[in-house]
């Protein structure tokens, strides 16, 4: 039962083969048993989950259930959920019980009838690529517990990979869904910016942040995405678009699909065996009827530098709200108001978050704004324009998700720059605001490798189709970590 797809679980619930209460209990028991090893969840509340499961069973009995009603999932602890502790991986919010629901949570709970199993561990305020910056300790990769699961959605990735949950939510500012999906053998999708509401999703870099699904397959991701999207007047950058069924094109044949291969993604900088797995996946696509064409993203080498100006600048502004006044941590001893701010923030934030706030404060400060912040925004335009040009010649872009497989805990923790370079292939997608996916495409030394798919704006259904057809022809995504 724990390895079933969302569609299979939905069928089992509809056929009364199992109740939501039983299914939820099955996963909660598994969390109890395996979470001490993995540290994937930071909050589990059995009573709350079971109450939601009972309500779902009532909906199923009454015939008012949606396609995913009664299925339990894991929520990244960046989404505010009413009555749930919502920490964002930080000491700053360690005791914050959210008084409201994020739109994504509200949609999943009230509309879709999904059951939340708990809140998953993450890099503090989503700033990290290994889940090691969490105040609640690192998450371990189910494929090798001496290694990181990736980040920042590392808890969600480890939870699904170890089948502590059938699927999970994640968020992606520079690769935080795709990179952990790659490192844990999952399928993950970052939608086009503006498709998923950011209301109640604790802000890191507002012009880049986007929520999305993490699951075992493209089909699961499509079904979960259907419950997450929609216009939201409470998010000023939410896009008012017609509702789509993201599963509608899953089975479309790939004949004639033009795959763009950016030469910059196939040069130096990627592990040779990871690259071999990616190339083998592209060869499989050719067998499925696709053709390949070389394209160029000439400014992609500037995406990491531009990102590390823009994201910290936005973070320094967003995180100024944590001042120990309205919510969150307040230092015990202070001399005056200013000292209270200084001490609360010094004690409440971890080292990486402080570093990024300081970079942001600097690049926005008088005399440096033009040279750094505006220059980064101009480069952001060049990067986005490169994609516009590339999509004149292809339908989808492919390459590696991450330059390496999962690295060892502690391996990159001391050197921020090395950690930042884990996201060299994913960041440009956020800067341009495009949709991107990671799809399992092989193993190197027993560790998963991810193939990145990048689509044009609003091409989520097409990306899911491209991923699904590959998953019909291969079984990489069905391999499970041997953790019991």
């Amino acid at each position, binding site marked *: 039962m724990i390895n079933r797809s969302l569609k299979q679980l939905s069928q089992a619930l509809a056929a009364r083969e199992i109740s939501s209460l039983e299914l939820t209990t099955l996963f909660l028991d598994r969390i109890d048993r395996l979470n001490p090893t993995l540290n994937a969840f930071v909050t589990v509340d059995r009573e709350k989950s079971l109450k939601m499961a009972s309500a779902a069973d009532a909906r199923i009995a009454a015939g008012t259930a949606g396609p995913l009603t009664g299925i339990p999932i894991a929520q990244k602890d960046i989404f505010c959920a009413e009555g749930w502790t919502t920490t964002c991986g930080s000491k700053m919010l360690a005791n914050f019980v959210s008084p409201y629901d994020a739109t994504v949570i509200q949609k999943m709970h009230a509309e879709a009838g999904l059951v939340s199993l708990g809140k998953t561990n993450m890099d503090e305020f989503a700033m990290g690529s290994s889940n090691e910056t969490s105040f609640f300790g690192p998450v371990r990769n189910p494929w090798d517990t001496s290694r990181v699961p990736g980040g920042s959605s590392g808890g969600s990735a480890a939870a699904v990979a170890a089948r502590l949950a059938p699927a999970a939510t994640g968020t992606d500012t520079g690769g935080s869904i795709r990179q952990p999906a790659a490192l844990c053998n999952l399928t993950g999708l970052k939608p086009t910016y503006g498709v998923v509401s950011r209301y109640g999703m604790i802000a890191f870099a507002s012009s880049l942040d986007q929520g999305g699904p993490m699951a075992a397959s493209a089909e699961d991701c499509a079904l979960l995405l259907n419950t997450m999207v929609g216009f939201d007047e409470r998010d000023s950058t939410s896009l008012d678009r017609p509702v789509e069924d993201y599963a509608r094109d899953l089975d479309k044949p790939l004949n004639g699909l033009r795959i763009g291969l950016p030469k910059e993604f196939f040069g130096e900088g990627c592990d040779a065996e990871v690259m071999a797995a990616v190339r083998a996946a592209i060869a499989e696509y050719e067998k499925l009827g696709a053709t390949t064409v070389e394209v160029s993203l000439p400014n992609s080498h500037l995406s990491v530098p531009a990102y590390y100006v823009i994201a910290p600048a936005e973070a320094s502004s967003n995180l100024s709200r944590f001042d120990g006044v309205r919510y969150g941590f307040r230092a015990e001893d202070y001399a005056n108001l200013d000292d209270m701010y200084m001490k609360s923030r010094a004690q409440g934030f971890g080292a990486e978050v402080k570093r990024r706030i300081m*970079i942001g404060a600097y690049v926005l400060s008088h005399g440096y704004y033009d040279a750094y912040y505006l220059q980064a925004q101009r480069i952001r335009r060049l990067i986005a324009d490169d994609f516009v040009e590339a999509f004149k010649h292809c339908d989808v872009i492919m390459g590696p998700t991450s330059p390496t497989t999962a690295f060892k805990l502690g391996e990159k923790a001391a050197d921020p720059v090395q950690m930042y370079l884990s996201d060299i292939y994913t960041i440009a997608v956020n800067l341009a605001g495009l949709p991107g996916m990671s799809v399992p495409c092989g193993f190197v030394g027993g560790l998963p490798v991810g193939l990145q798919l990048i689509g044009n704006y609003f091409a989520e259904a097409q990306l899911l189709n491209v991923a699904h057809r590959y998953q019909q022809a291969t079984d990489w995504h069905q391999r499970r970590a041997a953790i019991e």
Partner: protein
Amino acid sequence: MSLTLEQVKRIAHLARIEISDAEALTTQGHLNGIFQLIEEMQAVDTRGVEPMAHAQDVSQRLREDAVTEGDRRAAYQVVAPETEAGLYLVPKVIE
């Protein structure tokens, strides 16, 4: 570009983060490493390129100037470090 220790302390102050001398020294090393990475941008000629603030070129949406939310002050203040009579308490600012 290389940040001096004094600059690091000034940035920490701007960000309202207390920093000890020892932390400032470690931070200086890390920030200079990061800025070395960022400096790659400076070689690019971006004259005539419009800065891109946002992924979608849409203008900010405005809504009717009307009350849409109910009063949830009590629920929102439960999570505050210190409140009294509906007010957030902070150390005295004006003598």
